[in-house]
C-alpha cells in the first residue's frame, strides 16, 4: 500500500522559499501569480493491509517525525 503525506507550512508562517518562487516567476514574465507556497511530499510503501490502520500509523509517523507541528500542517492520502 502506498501512502502520501503532504506537508505545508501553517498559515501565518512565513515561507521564504514560496516567496522566492513567486518573485522568480514574475521575473520570468508570468503574471497574475498570487501566493506561492512550498511544502514537502513524502511517499511511503507500507505493508499494511488495512487502509484505516495504515492511515493511523502514518499519522503517528507524522506526529513523531515527518512533520514539525510547530510550523507545519500535514495531510495523509492512502491508496493507489
Amino acid at each position, binding site marked *: 500500500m502506498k501512502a502520501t503525506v503532504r506537508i505545508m507550512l501553517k498559515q*501565518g*508562517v*512565513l515561507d*521564504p*522559499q514560496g516567496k*522566492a518562487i513567486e518573485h522568480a516567476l514574475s521575473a520570468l514574465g508570468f503574471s497574475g501569480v498570487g501566493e506561492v507556497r512550498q511544502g514537502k511530499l513524502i511517499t511511503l510503501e507500507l505493508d499494511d493491509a488495512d487502509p484505516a490502520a495504515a492511515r493511523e500509523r502514518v499519522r503517528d509517523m507524522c506526529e*513523531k*517525525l*515527518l512533520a*514539525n507541528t*510547530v*510550523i507545519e500542517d500535514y495531510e495523509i492520502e492512502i491508496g493507489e
Partner: protein
Amino acid sequence: MKSALLLFPGINRDPDMARALEIATGARPVPVWHTETELPQGTDLVVIPGGFSYGDYLRAGAIAARSPVMKAVVEAAGRGVRVLGVCNGFQILTESGLLPGALMRNAGLKFVCRTVRLKVENDATFFTKRMKRGDVLPCPVAHHDGNYFADEETLKRLEGEGRVVFRYAEGTNPNGSINDIAGIMNERGNVIGMMPHPEDRVEDLHGGTECLPLFESIVQEVVA
C-alpha cells in the same frame, strides 16, 4: 567540571567545540555517541555541537532529535542539567521540544558563512555570566536554516521573560530571524540554543578571542 559532547552521524563542528571547551575549562569534553541511552555519570553540561546530523535531511535536526541519547538529554534537562546547543545543536533542541519555536530556511535561501555582531541580551545565564547586557561580540555564523520562528504568543513570552539570550546586532541579521533572535533559553534557564558559532572565535587564529568569555562563564557557573 564535566561536559558531555553529543555526537550524531553528520555532526562536524565537534572538534571546534571540544577545543573551545578545553581552552576555557581545561578539560576535554566526554564524547557521547547518539545510541547511548544514558549520559556519563556526573555530567555538569551537555553540549550539542554544529554540523549536519543525518545530513539535515527531512528538516535540520529532526532525525537527531528523535535519537536515544536525546531522551537522556530531555530527562537530564528536566533535572536541571545545563544544555547548550549551537547551530545544528540549536535546531536539535527545538526539534526535541526542549526549546520553543523552529529554525527555518534562511530568508536569503542560501547558506551563509560570515562574521556577524552578536548582542548579549541576557547576562545572567550560565553562558553569559561573564558578559554584560548590551555587549556586542563579533561571532561567525555558518548555516542554511537559522531563520528563527515562533508564533506570536511564544515570542511574547520569550521577550517578556528575558529568554532571548542573544540577538544579531542591528543590520547584521543574516537569516531573517524574527526579532533578530540569535539565541534563546528555556523557562528554567538551563537550556540554551544559539545559531552562531562562538567556538570559532576563541583563539587569535580566529581573528579574535571575543567569545572565549562565554565558555569561561560556564566554568564560573558550575564551580560556583
